[in-house]
């Protein structure tokens, strides 16, 4: 796969993964764009879940997954052979539409790419977005890109002062119109890249544009709720259509430019006759704001996409409908069902499981280390579930990953930035590793997950002896990206062993990942500083002389159990004499007994006047019982047997 790379910036790289099914057949979130291939009768839909899906006769064919963020617009070109997509991950991708694989990625944009425009006669496509620039691409050149021949020149139209939200070109490619937050339309000549004029009139952002075939007329829909018809030659607005009560986000014009089909935030699709703007008919009322529409094969109906994941097909009015002889149908003629998106997610205290709630109020449980959904709990009460699971066991684990729901699916990010992915050391027992030789041995969640993600990659040499305790499904997408910046590479976990994939991973995987997976020694434990003081009830004769007045200031790994602290008290702080010899003194049968004759179980530790269970670790005590930011203070006292 050919890539056009810009220079490698010095930004830190993070590793991410998306917890999804092996085949995501249904849209999970809203659908931003639609394109119809009349020859194959296929509908291409661009989803906010970053996947472009292909349906033929409402049957799912395949999904085109390569983007890592919302796909904002798609254009079918070369007679349906190729698809161009624009995404919020700042890239424009060229696809083989029939097979469904990504051919090239264009990285010229620096911010979200919001709109595409297509000039069919020239096979030229334009892309524009929030970086205020419009780039023109020759599709034939784009589709001829290979790994070795990976440069393409582009002309750009510069001059827009604000973020561009919509773009339109006429088939001959003689005029291009852009709509932005500037509220005025800008017109260019794409042949000469010269700005032509500005059309002022709208009072809000222009989000939908249509240009007539001959380039003499242009129709715009804006967030101010109005639709304006412009005469480009005269550079003025000739008509204003007010059929919507809220923003207009989608526009379609019939073949001969006689009717306008518009849809918007008011969830309505309306057909208006251009010659007589008072003549308009409501096509349908959807259940969510309308994002895009496209014609079916014979143009008697339209596919409508909304911010819900289901795409419906609605019949367009005909003469008889206009004459009010028969009413418009209230049901869609067909439908491509969508799935629910995760709208809420909470990481549980064990920092390994995530409880989610989706747009249908269904609650599910996910395991991050296994990158999969464990349980579907149905429409239970979300908060109660969280509370129940959190209070089951009091355990504190530091944060080690970030989570993101922009695609409606769980995306987990591992980095070294604000949240250190290697900060979660947990005992093997707590991690649920049942067959570990040493149950108390500490394992690191971040390392375990990274090991699992790069399991098949040849670029990292893991210790042959160390067993991999966690695996992730092979279909899980692995994404390498700059923090707060662009995506560098996306590959499925199972594909990381391939030649090209391997090479690309070599270039993009950051060192901190490699060194940590390969390096088997335990390092960088988090330490906790704390004070250990005798409780007032401890008779002073038991305390060793030199420890009498001084409060012991100790440092230990944050995951050590309080049992160890009690042992320390017993060994070092109580009893006469200076040292206890392990074998001698006293009865000497138990190691935990010393000269003073007490056992570890008799040492009770308290924090903030609450007694501390020996099995709790220090960081749990500090997080849940010691509420202050200053160093932890523990008191010890002796209780009777």
């Amino acid at each position: 796969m050919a890539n056009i790379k810009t220079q490698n910036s010095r930004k830190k790289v993070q590793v991410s993964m998306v917890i999804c099914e092996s085949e995501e057949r249904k849209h999970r979130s809203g659908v931003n764009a639609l394109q119809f291939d009349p020859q194959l009768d296929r509908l291409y839909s661009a989803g906010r879940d970053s996947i472009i899906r292909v349906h033929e006769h409402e049957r799912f064919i395949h999904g085109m997954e390569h983007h890592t963020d919302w796909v904002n617009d798609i254009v079918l070109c070369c007679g349906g052979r190729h698809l161009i997509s624009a995404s919020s991950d700042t890239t424009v991708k060229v696809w083989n539409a029939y097979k469904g694989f990504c051919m090239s990625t264009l990285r010229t944009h620096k911010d979200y790419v919001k709109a595409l425009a297509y000039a069919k006669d020239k096979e030229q496509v334009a892309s524009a977005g929030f970086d205020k620039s419009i780039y023109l691409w020759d599709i034939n050149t784009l589709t001829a890109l290979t790994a070795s021949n990976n440069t393409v020149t582009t002309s750009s139209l510069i001059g827009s002062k604000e973020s561009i939200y919509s773009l339109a070109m006429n088939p001959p490619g003689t005029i291009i119109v852009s709509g932005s937050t500037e509220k005025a339309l800008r017109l260019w000549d794409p042949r000469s890249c010269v700005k032509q004029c500005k059309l002022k009139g709208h009072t809000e952002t222009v989000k939908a544009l249509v240009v007539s075939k001959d380039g003499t007329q242009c129709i715009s829909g804006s967030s101010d709720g109005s639709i304006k018809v412009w005469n480009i030659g005269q550079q003025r607005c000739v008509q204003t259509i007010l059929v919507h009560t809220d923003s207009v986000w989608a526009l379609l014009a019939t073949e001969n430019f006689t009717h306008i089909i518009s849809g918007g935030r008011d969830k309505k699709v309306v057909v208006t006759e251009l010659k007589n703007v008072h003549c308009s008919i409501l096509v349908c009322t959807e259940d969510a704001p309308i994002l895009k529409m496209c014609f079916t094969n014979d143009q008697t109906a339209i596919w409508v996409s909304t911010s819900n994941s289901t795409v419906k097909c609605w019949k367009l009015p005909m003469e008889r409908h206009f004459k009010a002889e028969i009413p418009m149908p209230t049901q869609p003629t067909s439908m491509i069902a969508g799935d629910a998106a995760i709208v809420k997610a909470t990481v549980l205290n064990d920092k390994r499981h995530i409880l989610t709630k989706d747009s249908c109020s269904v609650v599910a449980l996910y395991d991050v280390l296994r990158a999969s959904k464990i349980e579907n709990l149905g429409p239970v009460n979300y908060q109660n579930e969280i509370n129940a699971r959190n209070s089951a066991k009091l355990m504190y684990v530091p944060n080690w990953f970030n989570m993101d729901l922009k695609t409606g699916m769980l995306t987990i990010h591992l980095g070294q930035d604000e949240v250190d992915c290697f900060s979660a050391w947990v005992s093997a027992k707590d991690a649920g590793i049942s067959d570990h030789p040493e149950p108390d041995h500490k394992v690191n969640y971040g390392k375990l997950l990274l090991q699992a993600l790069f399991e098949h990659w040849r670029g990292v040499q893991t210790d042959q002896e160390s067993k991999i305790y966690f695996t992730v499904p092979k279909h899980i997408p692995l994404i390498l990206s700059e923090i707060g910046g662009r995506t560098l590479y996306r590959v499925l976990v199972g594909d990381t062993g391939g030649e090209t994939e391997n090479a690309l991973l070599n270039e993009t995987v950051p060192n901190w990942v490699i060194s940590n997976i390969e390096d088997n020694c335990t390092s960088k434990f988090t330490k906790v500083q704390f004070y250990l003081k005798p409780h007032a009830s401890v008779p002073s004769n038991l305390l060793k002389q030199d420890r009498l007045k001084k409060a012991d200031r100790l440092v230990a790994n944050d995951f050590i159990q309080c049992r160890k602290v009690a042992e320390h008290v017993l060994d070092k702080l109580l009893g006469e004499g200076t040292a206890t010899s392990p074998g001698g003194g006293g009865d000497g049968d138990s190691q935990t007994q010393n000269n003073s004759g007490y056992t570890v179980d008799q040492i009770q530790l308290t924090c903030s006047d609450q007694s501390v269970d020996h099995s709790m670790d220090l960081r749990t005590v500090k997080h849940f019982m010691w509420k202050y930011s200053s160093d932890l203070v523990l008191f010890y006292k002796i209780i009777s047997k």
Partner: protein
Amino acid sequence: MNGHSPKKSANFNTRPLKTYQNRRRKRSLEDQNFDNLFHLLPYDNKATLIVDSTLEIVKWTIEESVFNETGESLSDWELEKFAKILYDQASLEWNKPISDQQAKNLLKEARSVGRKASSLSYLWEQVFDDQAVNKYSKENKLTEGSPTKRRKSCVGNSKKSNKRLPLKNLPNNNLKSNRPDFQEVPEASKFEFSNYSENIVFGQLQGTMSDYKEDQSYHHITNGDSMPDYNVATLLNMGNTCFMNSVLYTLRFAPTFLHNLHHLLVDLSLINSKLKENKTKTSSLGRNGSAVSGSSWRSASSKDLLSIGNNDIIPKSKDQIVTEKLHALFVTMNNLETKGSPDPYQPEALLQAMRDANTLFEGNQQQDAHEFFVELLSCLRVTCDKLNEQIEQNPDLIKSPEPTAASINNNSKIWGVRRSWKKPLKKKDKSASKKNGDFENDVAGGDSEDNLSSDGNSDSVKKKFVYNFIAEDFQGVSLHRTQCLQCEEVSELKEPFLEIQVPINYRDEDSESRLDSAIFGAICVTSEKLCDQNKYFCEICMRYNEAQRTVLYEKLPNIMVLHLKRFTTSMSGVQKVNNFLPTPLEIPCFCENCNKIEKTKITPHKYQLSCVIMHLGASMASGHYIAYSRASVETYDYIECTRDIPKSYLSSSSKDLSVNILKFFKGKGLGNTLSENQNGIGLNSKKNDAHVCQSLHCCGIRCKLNLGSQSHNDDWLEFDDEKVKILSNKEFTDMLNRRHDSTNTPYLLFYSKVE
């Protein structure tokens, strides 16, 4: 009057002593109780100093005899001096009571003083150094001319008279020790003592507007650089304290501020005393504790700067102490003005209280006036909250009034606690000529609700009683509106504020077409796009999107404080921004409702500049603050005030007192119809006889400025620590418009709402 009848002295002339009407006031024990209770002034247990009328009589006698002989009258402190000399000569102790025989002798001497004096200068020579006298006389162009002039120079209002004259033969230092504790004055000369010996006058107990005006009419106004007769009280710089002085001057002249502050403390005292009463009533041991007897008052003296040893039921917080000290300061300033004293006052007690409340002000460094202002306002607001809290906790203290219109004037039924704003507002509507619309009936975010005006059930008291004059007058509500440009969902966040931060580096396209007066509306109401690296996280879209964020003002306060952000922080530290920004005298209101009105129409309310604090200096680290205020005082809120102390708290003797005083002021009665004012003797309008809130005489502004609508004085006062100057309107606006004078910049602007 206790015991001594003036009839004892022979030949007492009942010449109208108009000029001294406020001076000779006896403060009985009950008066002092009263004063301590409501004005939180210490009980002065040096009763003899105050109550002993022998001294008074002696002074009167001296005055009479001098007058008879020379035809001239002496000022207070001169009389004081002579009286003291007489005492000294008679080997009598100043503060101890004396026997009748001794008194008689004294009076004889007093009478003879006048006879000895062939001229006043001779008298002076008795007391002062010759050289100094001549020098002084020359400087002040003393002539044996009209009494008015003489008095003027003696009072020494002009700057020139700041010099102190050396004295001889003056009884030593008993004087200083007898000064009341609550004022700390510098080691100035003994001259000053006389000002305080008369002690604090707590207003005419049954004052009327005409009385007030008459006081004021005594002085003339002169314009120009020196203003010998503009006896506005001044504050001394105690070492880098100009930040405090400028704020104090400003607050003093802010409309309704003094009035509200007074009532806040009155209410707090009343609650406290009520609670104490209740406590002693329920005291099972039956011991009449310290609640009501005089001794307890003593313990609450100003010596207890902190709340240690305080005998209050509810211990005083530091905020409350600050509030009390602030009020005491204004009381002092009131008195200084009443007496016509030229001396600046050092607000040490207040500074100390502020330092206790906030360690930021410790030490002697220069501070930021804005920070001081914010802290001071915070203390006041906390005190208001405390009052509300106490009322809430003790709802039985409030007696619900009868909900009739008659109750407006029926003070005894109303407890004196805040009443509904609505009632005064109705009255205010009648006075159409009111200049400043200080009473705003809008409620700021649920802050002020009054439950007294509702039905008389005690159940209604359960409704939350909230009154906070700081919130009412200074608080506005800002609205942050954010719209995600993807899903177009709008989210709003309302925030109350006490001042508006105004950025200086404002650039806008149509600055030429816009009037200067609209500048603050343009700067403060902002709209920005969140994009590029600064995108907005939309909860609906669950991602970062572009958004439009606007800041607008739902409600603008009655007193709008604009804090110009004249500092930038950079690598090299904090730097001052000296860029010019126009300071219009009047600005249209830019609250949301007013902004929606078409530009051609006039907004229902607008704002007038009432005070400015200027910062002089090239850097923020060091500089000087000067305060400016309009040379006018609004007194309408005092007239319309229905929140006076109930009559039951006035002691009967004080009533007698006032009656007795009247005996001396023949021809003048309460609520007389004739008064002297700036324009000559004229008929008072009925309004002037309306009952005036006592707080006017306690802590109100007493210097002679224009009063109400009678004149259109557009002058301004410049307060540079203890130096006060009048500026004409033109001079003031010229100064504000000076663009070249780069380092003198307006820093805090106070605009008050006008309907």
